[in-house]
């Protein structure tokens, strides 16, 4: 058994509007002249400390939690789960 830090990121599916990202990009970043930035996306990050037998199991455990407990809504969100470096 080990302790793993698993990171789950939930963001709007591509193609859907992301008002927060667009506002930050337009009214903050571009307005202040940081024009080398071409796009901004925003997501919510959940970091879970999980006790598991292997990193793979830890990741799957978190994936299951996200699905079953509806931490995200697959209709509108993308979910991306990784183990923390």
């Amino acid at each position, binding site marked *: 058994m080990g302790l793993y830090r698993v990171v789950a990121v939930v963001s*709007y*599916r591509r*193609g*859907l*509007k*992301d*008002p927060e990202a667009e*506002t930050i990009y337009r009214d903050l970043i571009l307005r202040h002249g940081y024009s080398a930035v071409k796009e901004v996306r925003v997501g919510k990050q959940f970091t879970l400390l999980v006790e598991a037998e292997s990193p793979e199991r830890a990741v799957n455990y978190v994936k299951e939690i996200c699905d079953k407990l*509806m931490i995200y*809504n*697959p*209709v*509108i969100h993308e979910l991306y789960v990784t183990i923390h470096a």
Partner: protein
Amino acid sequence: MPLSREEIEEIKSILSREPTLEELAMFEAQWSEHCSYKSSRRLLRLLPTAGRNVLIGPGRDAPAVEVFPGVAVVFKIESHNHPSAVDPYNGAATGIGGIVRDILTLGAKPIALLDMLYLGDLRDSRAKWLAKGIVKGISDYGNRIGIPTVAGDTWFDSSFNTQPLVNVACVGIAKTEELVRDRPAPRDAILVIGNPTGRDGLLGSSFASKPLSDNPSEDIGAVQVADPLMEKILIDSILELARKKLVKFVKDLGGGGLTTAVAEVAADFDLGAELRLDRLHLRTELTPLEILVSESQERMMLVVDKEKLADVVAVLEKYDVPRSLIGFFDGSGRIKAYYENKLVADIPAKELAKPRDIWRLSRPPVELVKLLNPVSDIPVVSVAEALDSLLSSPNIASKKWIYEQYDHEVGIRTILKPGFGDAAVLRLDTGDRRGIAVKGDANPRYTAIDPFNGAANSVAECYRNLVAVGSTPVAFVDEPNAGNPEKLEHFWYFEMMVKGIAWMTNELGIPVVGGKVSFYNEDYRGRQVKPTATIVGVGAIEDVGRVKSIDLKHEGSTILVVGTTYPELGGTEYLARVHGIEAGGVPTPRPSSELRNASYIAKLIDDEIALSVHDIGLGGLAVAIAEMAVLSDIGVEIDIEKIPHRGCSRLDEILFSETQARYFIEVKPERVEKALELASALGTTAAVVAKTTGRKFYTVKLGSITVIEKHLDYLRELHEESLRKTMV
């Protein structure tokens, strides 16, 4: 709902040729149930829409009534049931967005929102997830656009577990002469402003016009992310344009998108239009077909006199509103859409805008008899325990957990705030003390058992709520939420609900100035949710300083009950919650008692005899008086023997029957005689039944026997905390 074969044939004969793909999509969007009312129009004609105060009846995006000379109220209801079933947060939020834009089309300033929520059983995890998301969506959106959510209605029932009903309403005000209602004319410019158009919400109206698929994540087309900031910018800029009289006509780009907006205006004013689709501002590359029918949120269409175009653009510039000039109206009577100089659609506007009515058949379901027969042999239970279980029932318990998440104060107009009055009261700021009352109501259980009488009772309840605060009801809007109109038995419920609304509003003499219809409210197995008739009403108030709240004002007051109690336990919260029975007919609608008792209440408020007023609704007498006591922390003692009744033979019949047309009023002892005199003069039944006490107890007596006695703190905990506890 894809077009039927007959409809396609009809389209061919309208065009005298094969339709292009773009044209087919336009017909599909516009002829969807959601946009065209093809199944419902025939029945909706039964509703009384005319009245002395009606400035604009059904037909435009929102109706307008003149509540006081020169003061117009614009209000409307909308459902976002289907979007909320797959994405509760954005679904509910965009429902608010849509209804606000309807109000804006007349140049009225939105001053209040209402949300009528029919949610699933909170013990079900999906139902709870939906409920939380819906409330959060309304809260985040309504709060951000700065319109207070002042009232609503909330109900929980397992039939809504996967398909909740999210009905929202918005109320706006304007000076009558400032309503935006010029006639669009040939050569007027068509501007589309707001969000860039995207693929999100493609054919959303057709989505709302068919049953849910069993895998909700497939319904991507209908999903839209709400953008309250853009909505707020639209509100600010449109109100400025209206104030400066720069626009002739405004329309929401809602269901059916650009197609519906342009086709309806053209059809209504005998115009045609030429559109340049490639000029529209987009968020992603779209085909002309997609541009025509996308339902991206937070967009509006402005019809502008060419001469004023520059002034309009200056205002839009100030607020950084994205915009495009996409074409002009003309006198051709045809909608012609070009994409990069290629004609992609050419349709006669009138035929597009108004499909032929569909004559739907209906049939009462066979189980109906069982639901309507009186329930006999109801076991005798402890009424004291029954009271606890009613006060903590999520349908009756305080909705504080919900309405405290809504900014109900912004605008500084909210005189009677949620939880304090049977209706919310807003001042109008017309330089005097005038105001309006608003409330929305429905009882899904009543309408599921008996759609005609149930819907009539929704109207009556809304009416009483408006009367109880001291307003004169002026107008209603309605929203029947039904199942699949293609199914005879589902359509029967719709038909009966509309007839019930029509009958009761006619009896009460209050017009139904607008509304919305929602069909296909089924779960994935094709079972309809409890069909529900939601009514929102507006009442006029001369002096907001004199409105009545439900909390008791003094110790040592006298409490009167108005109206006779009948043994009507069928369909009640008591029968459902305590005995698990949802049948037995529903309480009889009593329009003449409603009218009589309402004028009595109005008189008592006018003559400053009533200190507080509460209508008696869900849970009956026992619950209504408990709510008054708990809110004020003033004890009450009620004697059942004194309650005027006809035919009641059991305690529970008196205490929990939901007989219509009843109220409690608190009166100073020295005014009781006057109150009773007035009652007999008006032919109203009123009787002294209770008094307020210095003890913090809720006591029910039967003569000298104490039937129930509970500490107010205990009851308050049940009433105020039950919903919050189930929500975590």
